[in-house]
C-alpha cells in the first residue's frame, strides 16, 4: 500500500510528491494530464501585488501583514512565516540539485522585476538563472531578439513597451533558419533544437552583429530543453553579453523544464482521472480512477489533493454557475451563480471572486467545513484549490503552490 497518493500534477502536486519521497515515503502522483507547469512562466511569484493596489510589491515579506489584513484566510497565513520561508529555501535547494537553479533578487525580502512577453514588468521572487539578466531594476540597455516565424513573440512590442518605461531598448528579428530548417514548430521544438551546440553556434552568429557593447540580450524562452544550462552559458560566452529568456505564451518552456526535472524524482502516472472514492469513519479508504475498462482502485494511508481550482480542473461547474470540487465534493467558498463570478473590471486588482474562494483548510492543511470541523482525517490539500487568495491578481500562484505543498507534507509527516 502507498503511504501517500497525490492527485494532481501541477507544481503543488509534483512538489508534494517529491517532498514525501524525500521523507522516504511510498508515494505516487496521479493526474488527468500535464497542466499548470506548462502554462506558467517557470518563475516563482510570491506576492506581486497587494489586493486593490496597482504598484508592485518589492518587499514581499514586509507586505505580508497588509496581505493578511485584507485576506485573513490566505494560504500564507495558514502556513505561517517560518514554514513559508523554509519552503522557498527547500525549493531553491531542490531545483539546484536538479540542475535547474533558481535565484532571487539578492536578499531574502526583495523581488525581481522581469519583462513579460508584452514588455511589462512582472514582480517575481525566484527565477531560473537564465531569466535574471532581464531584471528591470537595473538600467542596462536591452536588445530584444525574436523570429518572424515564431508566433506570439513580438520583439518590437516588447522593446517599445520597455522604451515607454524609460529603458533603452532595441528589437531585431532573426532568421528562423539560424535555429531550424523546419517550417512549423512550437517554442518547445525550438528549445529541443537548441540542445545541439552547433545550433547555438549558428544562433550566436546570427545574433552577434546586432549586439552592442553593454547591452543585454533578451530572447524568447527557447534556450534548450534537456541541456538548457549549457545552451544558455554557451550563448552568453559566444556573444560576450548577458543573455536572458522571456517566457513565451503557453506551452512554456521554462515550465516544461521544471515539470521534466521534477518528474524524475517521483513516480507520476498521467492520463488517470480520479473520479470516485470511498470513506469510512472519517477516513478515505480508496480513490478510483477511470481506465480503459473498469475503474482502478488506489489505496493509500493518506491522500493529498492538488487538482487546482476552476482553471486547473479541480473545480467544475454547470451552466448555471454552480461550482463543486470534482472528487470529494469538498465544501467551497465560491459564488454559486455565474453572474457573481467576475468583476466588471477585467483587470481589477482585487481579483475575480471565482478565483478568490476555494477549499477551506485548517492550519494543518486538512480541509474543514463551514464550522471549521475537519472533514477527513487522512486528506490534505495544497495549491490553488485553497480558499483565501486571488493568486492571479496577487501574482502568488507558485508561492502558494510551493508553500502549501511543502507544509501539507510536513503536517502529514507530523500526524504519522
Amino acid at each position, binding site marked *: 500500500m502507498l503511504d501517500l497518493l497525490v492527485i494532481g500534477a501541477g507544481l503543488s502536486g509534483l512538489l508534494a510528491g517529491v517532498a514525501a519521497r524525500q521523507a522516504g515515503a511510498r508515494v505516487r502522483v496521479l493526474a488527468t494530464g*500535464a*497542466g499548470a507547469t506548462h502554462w506558467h512562466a517557470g518563475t516563482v511569484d510570491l506576492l506581486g501585488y497587494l489586493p486593490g493596489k496597482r504598484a508592485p510589491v518589492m518587499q514581499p515579506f514586509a507586505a505580508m501583514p497588509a496581505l493578511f489584513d485584507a485576506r485573513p484566510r490566505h494560504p500564507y497565513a495558514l502556513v505561517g512565516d517560518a514554514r513559508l520561508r523554509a519552503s522557498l529555501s527547500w525549493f531553491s535547494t531542490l531545483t539546484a540539485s536538479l540542475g535547474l537553479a533558481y535565484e532571487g533578487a539578492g536578499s531574502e525580502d526583495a523581488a525581481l522585476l522581469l519583462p513579460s512577453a508584452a514588455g511589462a514588468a512582472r514582480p517575481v521572487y525566484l527565477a531560473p538563472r537564465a531569466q535574471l539578466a532581464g531584471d528591470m531594476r537595473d538600467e542596462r540597455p536591452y536588445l530584444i531578439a525574436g523570429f518572424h516565424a515564431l508566433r506570439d513573440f513580438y520583439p518590437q512590442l516588447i522593446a517599445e513597451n520597455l522604451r515607454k518605461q524609460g529603458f533603452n531598448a532595441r528589437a531585431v528579428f532573426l532568421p528562423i533558419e539560424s535555429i531550424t530548417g523546419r*517550417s512549423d514548430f512550437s517554442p518547445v521544438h525550438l528549445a529541443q533544437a537548441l540542445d545541439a551546440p552547433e545550433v547555438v553556434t549558428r544562433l550566436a552568429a546570427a545574433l552577434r552583429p546586432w549586439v552592442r557593447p553593454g547591452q543585454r540580450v533578451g530572447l524568447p524562452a527557447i534556450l534548450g530543453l534537456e541541456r538548457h544550462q549549457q545552451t544558455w552559458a554557451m550563448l552568453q560566452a559566444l556573444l560576450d553579453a548577458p543573455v536572458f529568456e522571456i517566457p513565451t505564451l*503557453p506551452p512554456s518552456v521554462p515550465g516544461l523544464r521544471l515539470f521534466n526535472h521534477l518528474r524524475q524524482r517521483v513516480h507520476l502516472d498521467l492520463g488517470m482521472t480520479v473520479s470516485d472514492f470511498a470513506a469510512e469513519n472519517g477516513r478515505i479508504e480508496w480513490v478510483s480512477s477511470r*481506465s*480503459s475498462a473498469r475503474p482502478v482502485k488506489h489505496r493509500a494511508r493518506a491522500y493529498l489533493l492538488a487538482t487546482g481550482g476552476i482553471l486547473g480542473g479541480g473545480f467544475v461547474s454547470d451552466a448555471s454557475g454552480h461550482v463543486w470540487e470534482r472528487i470529494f465534493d469538498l465544501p467551497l467558498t465560491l459564488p454559486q451563480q455565474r453572474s457573481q463570478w467576475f468583476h466588471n473590471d477585467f483587470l481589477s486588482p482585487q481579483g475575480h471572486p471565482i478565483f478568490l474562494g476555494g477549499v477551506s483548510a485548517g492550519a494543518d492543511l486538512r480541509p474543514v467545513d463551514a464550522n471549521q470541523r475537519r472533514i477527513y482525517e487522512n486528506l490534505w490539500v495544497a495549491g490553488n484549490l485553497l480558499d483565501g487568495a486571488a493568486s492571479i491578481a496577487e501574482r502568488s500562484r507558485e508561492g502558494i503552490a510551493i508553500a502549501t505543498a511543502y507544509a501539507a507534507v510536513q503536517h502529514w509527516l507530523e500526524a504519522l
Partner: protein
Amino acid sequence: MSDLWLPPEASLDQCIKCNICVSHCPVAQVTDLFPGPKYAGPQAQRFRHLGQPSPDASVDYCSGCRVCNEVCPNDVNIMEMNARARAALVAEQGMPLRNRLLGRNELMGKVGSYVPGLANFVLHHPVSRAAADAFLGIAKEAPLPRWSTSGTFIKWWEARYAQRLISDKKVVYFHGCATQYYEPFIGKAAVLVLEHMGYEVIIPPQNCCGLPMLSNGEFKAAGKLYDGNLRKLGPYAQQGYDIVGTSTSCTLTLKEEAPHLLDRHTPASQSLTGAVWDIFEWIREHEAELPRDFVPVDWVIPYHQPCQYRAHKVGSPAMDVLAMIPGITLHESHARCCGIAGTYGYKKEKYDIAMQIGQELFDFILDEAEHHHTEFNACDSETCRWQIEHGSGQDSRHPIEVLAAAYGLYHLNTRDILSSEDINTNGDSR
C-alpha cells in the same frame, strides 16, 4: 467509463488549445509532415464534415501512440479523432497494398508458420527486403519478426494440454498473433505463471484483435475481426471469466480501442471490455494469490512501459508486480514511445521518423547498459521489443518472462521453459 457514450469527436470542445499535446507529441517533434495532435485533431475536426472531402492528409502521419491523450489536461480523445479521420481518408481515397499487408499480420503469420524456416529465409533475405522496400514500401531496415521454428504457441499448448493444471480457479488467455506465430515462449511463460498462481488456463479459439487494420484505417475489416472475437470470447466474458493477454496493444484494442473507434457499444461489447485485462494488470489485482517462492536473483532491469500500455490508464502494473521480486532493481524509462507504433515504423516513408522518435529510449537503454551493466531490458509490447533490440542492440524481454524466470520456471537467455527436472538437477536455473 461514463454511462453515456459520446463519439470521440464530441470531446473537441473540451480542447482549450493549450498546445501541451503538441509539446509532447513524439512525431511532431521530429517531422514537419505531422503538424501536431492539436492541429490534426480537434482543430482540423471542425472542418471535417460527412460527405465532404477530408481537408487534411497529414493525419496519416499520426503514429497512434496516444501520448497526446495521456498528457491532455482536459480528456480530449485526440488520437481517436485522428484514427477516425484516417479511416475516412482511406474510405475516400483507398489505401496502398502495403498497408493491407501490414494490417493482415495474422494471415502472414499463419502462412509463414507452415514453412517457418523457408519463410524466415525468404522474408529476411537482403534481396527480398530490398524488393519489398522498392516495390511495396516496407522499410528494408525495419525489424520484422522471425517465425517460430519450434511450432506455434497453440501447437505447444495442445501437446501439453493433458498435463495442464486443472483447478477451480480459471482464467482465459488471449495470446495474440505475435505469440502464436513468432514468440510462442511469451505464451509459455504466461501459462507457467498463471498455473503457478493456481489458475487453470483456458485458451479458446480467437483471432487477431484488429489493431493493425484499425491503425491503417481499414475499419470495415477490423470490425469483422472484432466481431469474431466478440463471438469467440464473449461467452466467457458473460460467464464471468477474466480474459488476460500478454500483448498490451491487443488487450487495449479489445477493451477500448475497437469498440470506441468502431462505434460498437452493445451490452455484449461492454461485457467483453469489462472482462479483458492486461496480464500484469490482472496479476496486480490478484496480488494476494501471487506465490512468493522466488529464486534468488540479482537483476538491474531498465523497464519501458509502452505508450499502448500507458493508454490503458491503469498505472504501471508490471513495475508494481516485478518490484515484489526480492533482488530486482527496476529503472523506469521516461521515454514517450519507441517509435514503431505497431506498423508505423515498418513503412518506408516513416521508418526514419520512427527511429528518431525511438532515440530517447535507445539512449536510455544504452546508458543503462553502460552504467549498470544490464544484460537485458523489459517491455510489454512485442513490436516495441523488436524496435528496442533494433535501435539499441540490447536484448529485450516481456515482463512475464522476467516473472517466470524469477520463479525458476524460465530461462531468460534461451527463452526456454525449464521443466521441474531442470531445476532439480541444476539448482542454478537463473
